[in-house]
């Protein structure tokens, strides 16, 4: 029943998409300034169909209709309701439907909010967007149909991978997809603008809010994924340079670059071609990321059921998107001369772009390099954190300096307040010195990171204060974002340099001494929950210097469906430190392997990401 309903809806979406394309082509040549009502109505229908389709699948998950293959493979009756719902996008088919839903939704919103722009531009953008929608619907229908039937229907499902049953992960895909998929709108707009010769400033105005909006959600999406990795994977890390994490970072770099260069475009009408390239590239990289993740070409923690035909299909979409946008760009780009630059604000904003592109290329190469070596030389290699750290960190230092100076510059002629800058620099040195004294030795590069991030933090903070005093609240978005970024780098630096880790084998009743901590293994408890059993250890971590005791209760969970062991970290956060404890059983032994980590400033690190994205959010309310 659900299957038939769902499949019919997919057909209806397909038809409405085709008709939008048809009518849009038709009305390009027609007279009249406004887009015909028909297209609005069709778009509204398209949204209705796609939302109903997604809801149908969600209902399938909620009522555990195992006649649907997707539900059977990824759900179970014993699962809590929230994870039944989140399970809808915890798998390839469902997440693709969510993807299409968002794509259609963005299409509709773009149409509704774009009334004031040129008709030809809107129509071409619409056509481009609907071709994208079309290609993904065909992909869904032919290779990843979520409404496939199993006959006879099984009584029980296989269950959702337990490590995906987590609140942070329930919201991670939707947030991330809003960012990813939202970028399709400025891809299409760029195509529309190129074909219809839209003036630069008008283009900037039409996509600016979309860029900020998607950047905001992309940032939050990556954040949620990171939080999940920290709590759930039990390594105590929050970023692993895993290919999939990288795949989400590539469009993010592009969006960040775009968010900055668009200011120059809006203000001065310069960099039009560059902005167009960035618009096209963001979504192309999004599809490229999708390809890397779902084709199984790379191995990573994000294991979707891999299927080479799917990979091939996405590769074709990617190739088409790449070539079509490339040729349209070559044919229609007017090529704009970059005028001689003074050291004005534009230069600084552009420098952001250089860095973003540098990071992008670095991460891209690191991610795809193993594929290249395997295809060309037939050797398997993996590119790990040392590569990224070595290449990226030195540049972050310069980046932070430019980021601090940029906002001080003016659009016309800049004179830097040298005295103020020097004072702040000295202050940053002093703060760095304090860190060195408290935490003892650090490397030269860490010192530089600390100094420059303090510099940025102080500069941005003063900016925020100044704008509040001047009562220009609407202008503080940039300073807030920069402040957040400065804090983020500072806390990553502190966390990276001053985390402590101890590894011991311990049995119940024992006390082990770890430097200035005493770890006591008090007892073990067995409990039963709705869909798993767990072994809970009761530990006491005593800090002999500061004289406090933390109770930590790590778990080993035994899930039944599918039968899996997961190790749940126990984390106690204080203002300055996170105490992170994981335990694993040793075979044939009463001993447990326990890993204790003391990680400074974790909560601050999370907070700084939120501050950074808050900046983007505030920008949405910025009116000139």
């Amino acid at each position, binding site marked *: 029943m659900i299957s038939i309903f769902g499949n019919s809806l997919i057909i209806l979406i397909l038809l409405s998409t085709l008709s939008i394309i048809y009518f849009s082509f038709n009305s390009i040549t027609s007279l009249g300034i406004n887009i015909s009502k028909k297209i609005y109505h069709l778009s509204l229908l398209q949204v209705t169909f796609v939302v109903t389709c997604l809801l149908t699948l969600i209902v399938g998950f909620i009522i555990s209709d195992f006649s649907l293959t997707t539900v059977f493979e990824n759900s179970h009756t014993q699962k809590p309701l929230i994870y039944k719902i989140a399970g809808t996008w915890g798998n390839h088919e469902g997440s693709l439907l969510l993807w299409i839903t968002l794509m259609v939704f963005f299409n509709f919103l773009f149409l509704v909010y774009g009334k004031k722009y040129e008709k030809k531009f809107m129509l071409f953008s619409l056509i481009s967007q609907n071709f994208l929608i079309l290609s993904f619907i065909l992909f869904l229908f032919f290779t990843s149909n979520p409404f496939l039937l199993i006959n006879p229907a099984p009584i029980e499902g296989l269950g959702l991978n337990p490590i995906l049953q987590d609140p942070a992960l329930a919201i991670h895909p939707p947030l991330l997809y809003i960012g990813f998929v939202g970028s399709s709108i400025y891809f299409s707009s760029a195509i529309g603008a190129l074909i219809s010769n839209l003036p630069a400033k008008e283009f900037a105005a039409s996509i600016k809010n979309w860029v900020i909006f998607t950047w905001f959600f992309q940032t939050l999406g990556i954040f949620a994924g990171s939080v999940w990795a920290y709590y759930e994977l039990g390594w105590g890390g929050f970023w692993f340079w895993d290919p999939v994490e990288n795949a989400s970072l590539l469009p993010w770099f592009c969006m960040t670059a775009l968010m900055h260069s668009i200011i120059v475009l809006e203000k001065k009408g310069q960099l039009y071609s560059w902005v167009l390239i960035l618009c096209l590239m963001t979504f192309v990289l999004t599809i490229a990321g999708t390809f890397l993740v779902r084709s199984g*070409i790379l191995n990573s923690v994000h294991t979707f059921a891999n299927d080479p035909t799917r990979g091939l299909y996405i*590769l074709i979409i990617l190739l088409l998107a*790449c070539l079509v946008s490339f040729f349209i760009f*070559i044919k229609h780009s007017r090529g704009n001369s970059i005028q001689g630059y003074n050291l004005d604000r534009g230069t600084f904003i552009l420098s952001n772009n250089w860095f973003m592109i540098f990071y992008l290329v670095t991460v891209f190469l690191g991610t795809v390099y193993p594929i*290249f070596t395997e295809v060309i030389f037939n050797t398997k290699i993996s590119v790990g954190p040392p590569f990224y750290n070595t290449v990226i960190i030195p540049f972050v230092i310069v980046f932070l300096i430019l980021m601090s100076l940029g906002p001080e510059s003016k659009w016309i002629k800049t004179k830097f307040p040298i005295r103020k800058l020097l004072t702040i620099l000295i202050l940053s040195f002093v703060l760095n010195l304090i860190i060195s004294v408290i935490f003892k030795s650090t490397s030269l590069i860490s010192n530089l990171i600390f100094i420059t991030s303090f510099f940025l933090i102080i500069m941005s903070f003063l900016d925020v204060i100044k704008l509040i005093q001047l009562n220009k609240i609407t202008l503080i978005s940039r300073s807030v974002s920069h402040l957040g970024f400065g804090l983020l780098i500072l806390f990553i630096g502190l966390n990276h340099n001053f985390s402590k880790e101890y*590894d011991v084998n311990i049995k119940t009743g024992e006390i082990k001494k770890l430097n200035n901590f005493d770890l006591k293994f008090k007892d073990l408890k067995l409990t039963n929950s709705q869909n798993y059993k767990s072994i809970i250890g009761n530990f006491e971590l005593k800090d002999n210097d500061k004289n406090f005791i933390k109770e930590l209760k790590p778990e080993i969970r035994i899930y039944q469906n599918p039968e899996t062991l997961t190790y749940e970290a126990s984390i106690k956060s204080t203002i300055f430190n996170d105490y992170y404890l994981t335990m694993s059983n040793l*075979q044939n032994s009463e001993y447990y392997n326990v890993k204790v980590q003391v990680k400074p400033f974790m909560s601050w690190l999370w907070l700084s990401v939120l501050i950074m994205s808050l900046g983007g959010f505030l920008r949405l309310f910025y009116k000139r």
Partner: protein
Amino acid sequence: MSKINFTAYFILLLIIFVFMIFFFGLKNNQKYDTRDNVGKQISEFELTSVKSNNILTKSDLDKSNFKLFNFWASWCPPCKDEHPFLMKLNKIDKLKIYGINFKDDTKSAKKFLVNLGDPYDHLLLDETGKSSVDFGIYGIPESILIDKNLIIIKRYIGPINNKDYEEINSLVTK
């Protein structure tokens, strides 16, 4: 104009190149899975032997006995767990045990064997861990059982326990 054209062609070629790689990479799609190795002959290797300080290769392996390649390190707690079983396995005549010391400090490895006993007929060093990866090792401890024709007949991922010991014993002595 010709300059723009050149850049455009270059970018186009680059795009096509990347796509070709992706396309062939897709066909190449072999997951890193050691289960596939069972039933195949072991691959070529070069490892330094501690006793003789010589390089040991595949052709140096003696073909008269079963061999157990055990991948271990002194820093790996589960390796301590399996150690007693390796000591027991050492007593089986028809089985030669090769210990491959994975990414370890040789001094602490030797100390480990002095303290807990040395079950290995040959101790080989893999300081970078690269050879072990070529063997298809996931992590340590891991062991592979090889027959007289150098064919991998069984893999043991994780520490060897009593059940594994019984199994190896019956496979070798049958």
